[in-house]
């Protein structure tokens, strides 16, 4: 494997999110908080979602981890803000498909920056890094529904 292959993993846009994470922090408004970690490697995310009338009004995260997990969290919070809960869950399912290497070009939503993580599917050991934030989001939405 050459560094070209590494470039498919570490795209510029990923590095940009890692270096300048969007939505880093906590929410003071009434929000759902989910702590999740990846027990095999120690990556950790604390996700705050403010959900009103079925819409994700705000999303913030804190956490520690590698460039893939932290950039993915940054992108995820950006992507789901303003979306309906079911849209957010749908996006997560598309993301999972992307991680399995499935073609997601035909989907009818704008993936935006998230698409940059497509290369992760070629690095099986790193898929869990990328999906951590999305799993936390799914859990937060489920927790909101229970309330």
């Amino acid at each position, binding site marked *: *494997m050459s560094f070209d*292959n590494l470039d498919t993993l570490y795209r510029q846009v990923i590095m940009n999110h890692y270096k300048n994470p969007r939505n880093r922090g906590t929410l003071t408004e009434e929000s759902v908080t989910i702590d999740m970690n990846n027990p095999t490697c*120690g990556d950790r995310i604390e996700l705050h979602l403010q959900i009103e009338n079925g819409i994700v009004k705000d999303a913030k995260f804190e956490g*520690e*981890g590698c*460039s893939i997990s932290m950039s993915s969290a940054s992108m995820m919070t950006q992507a789901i803000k303003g979306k309906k809960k079911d849209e957010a869950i749908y996006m997560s399912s598309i993301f999972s498909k992307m991680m399995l290497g499935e073609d997601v070009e035909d989907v009818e939503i704008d993936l935006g920056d998230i698409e940059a993580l497509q290369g992760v599917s070629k690095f099986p050991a790193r898929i869990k890094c990328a999906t951590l934030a999305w799993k936390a989001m799914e859990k937060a939405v489920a927790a909101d529904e229970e309330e």
Partner: protein
Amino acid sequence: MDIQSIRKQFPILGQEVNGHPLVYLDSAATSQKPVSVLEAVDAYYKLNNSNVHRGVHTLGTRATDQYEGAREKVKHFINAASTAEIIFTRGTTTSLNTVAYGYARQFLKAGDEIVLTQMEHHSNLIPWQQAAKFTGATLKYIPMEADGTITLEAVRQTITEQTKLVAVTHVSNVLGTINPVKEITQIAHEKGAVVVVDGAQGIPHMKVDVTDLDCDFYAFSGHKMCAPTGIGVLYGKKAILEKMEPVEFGGEMIDFVDLYDSTWKELPWKFEGGTPIIAGAIGLGAAIDFLENIGMDNILAHEQQLVQYAIEQLSAIEGLKIFGPERRSGVLTFNMDQVHPHDTATVLDAEGIAIRAGHHCAQPLMKWLEVTATARASFYLYNDESDIDRLVEGIQRAKEYFGDVF
């Protein structure tokens, strides 16, 4: 030690990974296996496969002889007094759990203390946490020095008359710290406590003499010492093992069975319920032959030289921090400024270099080090300085690669 000829005996090391010759620096996770071990397992299945201790037929006798022969080899390798003290298990985790269930839960009570260190692998921590919850005993930790070592003064201050069990790792899988288990055992025995040593990272790399250490239990895995996965050993002093009840019940471990009561076989078989790990034990026997042929003292000296060279080379890299003491086994844990260990490991993997990144099953130690994860390179008898040179080049490239970002 002729490293080139040793390497030739490990077929896996001859391959290319991601377009580069493999550099395997993850032996603390699991070691590679020499041809002699692979052939011993292969020959067992091709020629002698049979269940042990039951068949009247010839294959059964051969399998039993080989299985018990492996026990004999382990006994000599660690200088135990008797084969009754050598229990085959699935690995270190099972060995330690056998002591936690068969000894700690049976004999400890509320008010008793279990003493550990903060550098324990989860497998020498959680069984005692659970045993403490079950019995009402309390856990105590021997404090560590800033360099990740423990002093005998700290050991003396922590172990009291209430201490009934001391569980300590021989060698830290993260820091490489070599603990003074002989001296710790002496102090613990003065207070009447039994000593359990987690030898997973010790026995593959140095001569272990359980009679000299005088510890009550010594647990280890085969797969970190050139043997297959799924086989391990619990050494225990006969007098203590005899007091203990078995922890697994069923076939193989019984003497007489009645509808309402049963009795157990003698040691060591009362702890080996079910068909044992026959091929694994034979593989372990072959691994012991292989290691003894090279010599444990030679292996230790080689690794000491290698780790010193690695410390010198890695220390020269700007922004790289090494964790752990000066005197250590062949384990080098480090982090780089600005580059997360997973990313370091991925860049190195692209160069064909296998290292470990993560918490290394030692989360309390990560907390103590004030990190969430680290990168770890670990060495064994088949590594040489050229592997370390490749590691250094790989780290430099990771630095350049991520350096562009920051």
